């Protein structure tokens, strides 16, 4: 594996890590309107209270790594998707404001405003992330200069595949909602937990329907989507893994093994990120205008020297990151308890 491929894989790892971790944060936000009392809403909020900030760092690091390893890709996508990324920023800042400030005042009106902000931003962000992934898979108008020449609508509703990005957006939101419900089931107890069981089933059902539709649309109409499976037959293992993990979700809910359910939904997320990566490889951005204008892991990359230095840095740092992330999650294991320092 050369350095370019290594960094393609590492970006996938960072993205998958982000999706698994911040995914349930978004899910918790989307489920907020289903909580009935202020106490329940605070339980939901505080289930992610100590960790959402750290989870968001995976996105920051993913963005930084993309800038560093594939500056062409970073420059083209971020400038091309200008409005979409500004909306992402809006959602992320709104979410941070809402989490930080909702419980600082007692007034119900104050709290209702921030609860809505938390819900809205938690829904908007995964929709946008999904749309962006869908658009990258379908291809966007990038010219011979590597410059995006379309508009916002070429991303949301590309002419070749008007529904696909939105479909992926909805799929992402549904996946995170399910994932968030499973996470909450682990962190709650009694009557709220009993209701969460229903939410898990509903979340799973919605996800499954959207997953099947999206898969059919992808295979039927998105070029390249399946081509790499001929080149890399081992990729089928990932497909099988994702199907098994999906099947394991209702099974483990039924047998009440929420720990396993959570692992299964995390595997589904990781597998889906992996499948997107395989479908794209070795491209990182497909041009809908001409195959010759695709950005690849080679023409969009930094120099081998930089990729090498970054690999050394990652090799030195990642073991520590994983170790103390595990320690911190271990510290906050167990059910949510509201205390003096809660939100």
């Amino acid at each position, binding site marked *: 594996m050369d350095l370019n491929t290594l960094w393609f894989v590492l970006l996938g790892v960072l993205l998958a890590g982000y999706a698994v971790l911040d995914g349930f944060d978004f899910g918790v936000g989307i489920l907020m309107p289903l909580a009935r009392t202020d106490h329940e809403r605070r339980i939901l909020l505080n289930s992610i*209270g*100590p960790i959402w*900030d*750290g989870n*968001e*760092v995976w*996105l*920051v*690091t993913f*963005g*930084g790594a993309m*800038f*560093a390893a594939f*500056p*062409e890709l*970073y*420059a*083209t*996508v*971020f*400038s091309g998707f*200008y*409005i979409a*990324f*500004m909306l*992402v*920023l809006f959602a*992320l*800042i709104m979410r*941070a*404001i809402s989490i*930080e*400030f909702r419980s600082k005042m007692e007034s119900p009106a104050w709290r209702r405003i921030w609860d809505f902000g938390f819900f809205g931003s938690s829904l908007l962000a995964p929709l946008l992330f999904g749309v962006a992934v869908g658009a990258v898979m379908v291809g966007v108008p990038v*010219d*011979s*200069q*590597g*410059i*995006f*020449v379309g508009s916002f609508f070429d991303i949301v509703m590309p002419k070749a595949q008007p529904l696909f990005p939105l479909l992926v957006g909805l799929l992402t939101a549904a996946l995170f909602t399910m994932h968030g419900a499973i996470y909450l089931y682990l962190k709650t107890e009694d009557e709220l937990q009993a209701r969460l069981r229903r939410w898990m089933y509903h979340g799973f059902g919605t996800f499954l329907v959207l997953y099947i539709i999206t898969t059919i649309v992808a295979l039927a109409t998105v070029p390249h989507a399946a081509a790499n499976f001929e080149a890399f037959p081992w990729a089928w293992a990932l497909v099988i893994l994702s199907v098994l993990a999906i099947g394991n979700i209702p099974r483990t809910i039924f047998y009440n093994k929420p720990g396993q359910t959570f692992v299964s939904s995390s595997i589904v997320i990781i597998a889906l990120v992996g499948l997107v990566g395989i479908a794209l490889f070795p491209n990182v951005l497909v041009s809908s205008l001409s195959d010759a*204008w695709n950005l690849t892991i080679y*023409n969009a990359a*930094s*120099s081998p*020297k*930089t990729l090498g*230095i*970054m690999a050394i*840095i*990652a090799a030195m*740092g*990642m073991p*520590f*990151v994983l170790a*103390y992330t595990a320690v*911190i999650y271990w*510290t906050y294991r167990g059910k949510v308890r509201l*205390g*003096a*320092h809660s939100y």
Partner: protein
Amino acid sequence: MDVVFLSRLQFALTIMFHYLFPPLTIGLSIVVVYLLGMRLKTGEAIYETAARFWTRIFGVNFALGVASGIVMEFQFGTNWAVYSRFVGDVFGSALAAEGIFAFFLESGFLAVLLFGWDRVSPRFHFFAGLMVSLGSIFSSVWITVANSWQQTPAGSQLVERTVNGRTFVRAEITDFWAMVFSPSSIHRLVHVWLAAFILGAFFVMSIAAWYLLKGRHLEFAKRSFTGALILAVIFTIGIVISGDLQAVNVAETQPAKLAAFEGLYKTEESTPLYLFGSPSDEEQRVKYGVAIPGMLSFLVHRDFKTPVPGFDQLEKDYGRPPVWISFQSYHIMVALGFLMAGMAVLALWMRWRGTLWNARWLLWGFVFAVIPAFAGNELGWVAAEVGRQPWIVYPTVVDGQVTGGLKTAAAVSETVVPQEVLGSIIMFGVLYTLLFALWVIILNHKIQHGPDPIPQEPDRTTAADYLEAASRRPGHEDSMTEPKEAPAH
């Protein structure tokens, strides 16, 4: 209005808002680590009370720093695509190091620092505080390294590349450590750190002075103020020295920037130093100014004669930055630095004489002195960034030939249109107004609430202590065995 102007405006707005928080975070993290360490060492309740209070304040600032910081990372790509392609290879390693070593460290352990009071041991809590502080300091290292490379490129070379149909030049790294230790990076890093520590100290003194004036939390306020005051004296004197060394460095590496700081249109012997004034591009001189003759020559060359080059010599190679903004932001920063140093030295002397706590006028001065501390941090960066114009990446001049460099006007995204940038500026304007209002409201709320009362029960309990405490509390308001209900807030 074009995309270049609007993107610069947006960058100025977002970075200046963001930069309210990182130096305060760095400064306060030192305070928190010190208090957690003393709590661990002495077990005295006052340290825990103080640590809890300053950690709450710290947490609010940190959250705002993260929320406004994500914008910065996105913005390089959204608005400055050409720049991103140019610098990506060089910034790559610095950004990777920042993400891996700094961001994960600070945000991960922040969870333990903020929420771990009742869950982890004081020892681990101290460790978590230390890691958060180290993380925020690491972060400042890498971002200052990257920015310093933009000011004084080193350890890199320009390489021509072809991607699909386009040929362009980008900077590629040749020597990682030469890039890290570019000619200006250490000077700038020291200056950034000292400014952050000063802000932390003045922030603490501002709140403590207010409590002293209102006669609240006196024990807590006096100890906080004294501790911060000692730091303030050391750091403000330190930053004057650091500033002098840095100015000499700027004179060597970015002469046009120094010329803009000092309003030097003409090169002359015994170059004067203006204390204040108003540089005018039309008249090619500083108007309404008061100057010390030969002083700038002395500061730069350590003799009063040797001329410091002005724009008549420099402009053809380096271009000319907006002189008025550079001059004023630099001069006000320096003036504020001396003002704060003077206040700190005066207060320390009065503290030693035992008259400080009665000098209400000076305490009121310290309540508001946090504003010059914020302003000094911001203006320093304004001077550094505006003084680099018209370049976004500074060129090097070898034998009269300008090589390398990237002009700001050529660095924006090709595909972005003015309406989009205008829209995002309005969005950030609304969001940041909201954020700023909330920041003030919450800080005020926390300051009004103040530190929790210092518990009077002895910490290390013996049977005799229990009896003593029980005898003081016949009403059993506080149970000795049940954990205390935490106060809601």
